[in-house]
């Protein structure tokens, strides 16, 4: 039985509306601190440790100067909160890190050896749109007997 983790604190959805482990990346969307309309698309790649942060229009984040910006730190914090240190460490392949000692995601930064490496923000952003689609599907009053397999 796969149960949801009881999170140590609630996720900051306003700040980081979306985070996931997907296609070999810890990736997500981070709201801009200054502009309500703007979001940043950020990711860390498993294995290489490469990372990037840009607006959803592919403009690079100003805070990205050879090392991860504050958006990437927030992404890592929320990712570790959502999935737990063990899963994030295993997924990103950070062999040196010890899951039991990690209090916050930011502590994993020193194990990330890669550098800025651009990917199209559109790939991550379309995953965010897929994610949002789930909250846009109409709820239903029809029986769903197969949900008997999904209990908590």
């Amino acid at each position, binding site marked *: 039985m796969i149960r949801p983790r009881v999170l140590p604190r609630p996720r900051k959805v306003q700040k980081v509306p979306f985070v996931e482990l997907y296609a070999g990346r810890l990736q997500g969307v981070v709201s801009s601190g200054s502009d309500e309309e703007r979001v940043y698309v950020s990711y860390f790649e498993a294995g290489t440790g490469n990372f990037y942060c840009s607006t959803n229009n592919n403009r690079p984040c100003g805070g990205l100067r050879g090392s991860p910006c504050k958006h990437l730190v927030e992404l890592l914090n929320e990712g570790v909160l959502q999935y737990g240190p063990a899963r994030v460490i295993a997924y990103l392949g950070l062999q040196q890190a010890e899951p039991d000692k990690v209090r916050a995601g930011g502590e994993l930064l020193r194990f990330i050896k890669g550098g800025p490496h651009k990917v199209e923000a559109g790939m991550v952003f379309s995953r965010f749109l897929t994610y949002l*689609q789930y909250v846009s599907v109409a*709820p239903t*009053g029809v*029986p769903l007997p197969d949900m008997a397999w*999904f*209990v908590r």
Partner: protein
Amino acid sequence: MPLTDLKSVPEPVVHTAELVARLDEVFESGFGRLSSANLQTLASLAASFAGTPLAEPLDAAIAGLGRSEFVDRHFAAIAAARAAAHGAMHDALVAQACAALSRPRPELEALADTPGQAAPPRAAVLLESVRQWLMELAIAGFANLEVGALLPFQATLDAIMAEPALVRHAALLSGFLDELLTVFPAHGKPEVPRLRWVDLWTRSMVLSLAPPAPAATREVKGELRVFATDLRQHDHVVSLVAFGALHEPGKPPRVVRTCVSAFKVDVLQGEDFAGLLGEVGGKLLEAIAGGQGVKISGMLLQATGDLLWQEARAEVLPAKLKLAEEAAAVLASPTALRPSARPEDRHPALIEELVWLPGDGYSAAGKEVRELSLKGESFAVASERWPSSDDLLPADVAGSKGLVALLRFDGGRWSLQPVMIDKGKPLPRLVGTSLQAARAKARGGNLGTLKERAGKLLRKKS
């Protein structure tokens, strides 16, 4: 009536479970590389269906798969055989349970076919894509899956979610894909929950063989008194199932089941459910929170005893009910017309016989209540099904005046899942009683934030 008669499991059930377990080994290693042991397993599966309508397609499937003919009708035959084996186990177990409880076996209500809307043509194409994906999983084998083989299915799933006729498929497949993506990619050999995944595979395949036909229904009028609830969820769906007594004018009260569900994302948990479920079942949540009845006018009831919840046909009644008495009365000797499963859905995991245990009939063993003592004999509690909710806690069992439980069969044994506990107060303990109060709070929360983003961004996209 002793429940304690359910200590043992009928022998044919044990044998069938062993046959299914051997078949599941083939799904783990993959139909693309059948070993001689695998071929023997498939042959013994075919032998056990000799003389049944499945014999011919199953023989053809096994011969074909042995020649590496990977076509979906072969996998459909394997899925049908596996589902039929579980259906037979379900029926034998229900017979055993009903004998122990001295009650008739549940029956489907005889209903005339109701004309309904057939699924749109697009549904057939989407289901063909589902079968194709399932076939790829079975050929590769669960032990050999790679994330690259799983990701493209997300696009099919997006289209299925946009198709209201396939809501059941969307709920099942999103949970299944999620779980596969959680485990893969993993370093080294991940542990495959074999029985569970082949169950989900089989249900997905059987459900995708043909577009869903409209179910027969009849309109009901009367009063619904919900006395027990169960919560089911995965990252993308939450379902609140409610059991209650339906009082129709001029008929004896009977047990029915109703279910409201919503799609969601992983961060939506706990109180967020209030906002999600309130949209489809606000009056149901109100009635559960207040221990009140609901006046039903013209809601549709299916042959399985499932009431299709419609807000517009419900009206919460002011009087506070004595729900424990209500449950005790209707569950004392329930009629054959009570919640059950359609033949094609039957599986031991779907067995949920409602029982009422009076306060002097049980006591809690230990703080975590892993077992109940029934007049001195211990009986397992389905602890793994205890929902993560403060509305109903294991600690509520101690000192209670009676409880409603679902009799379940899981992991090869019978167990009881408490779904309502009478503490002697007007409102009994059951899951969902806190949701009504959380509805007002939920508006500004995570759900609100995500809906607002979705409103802006999804509109922009189209």
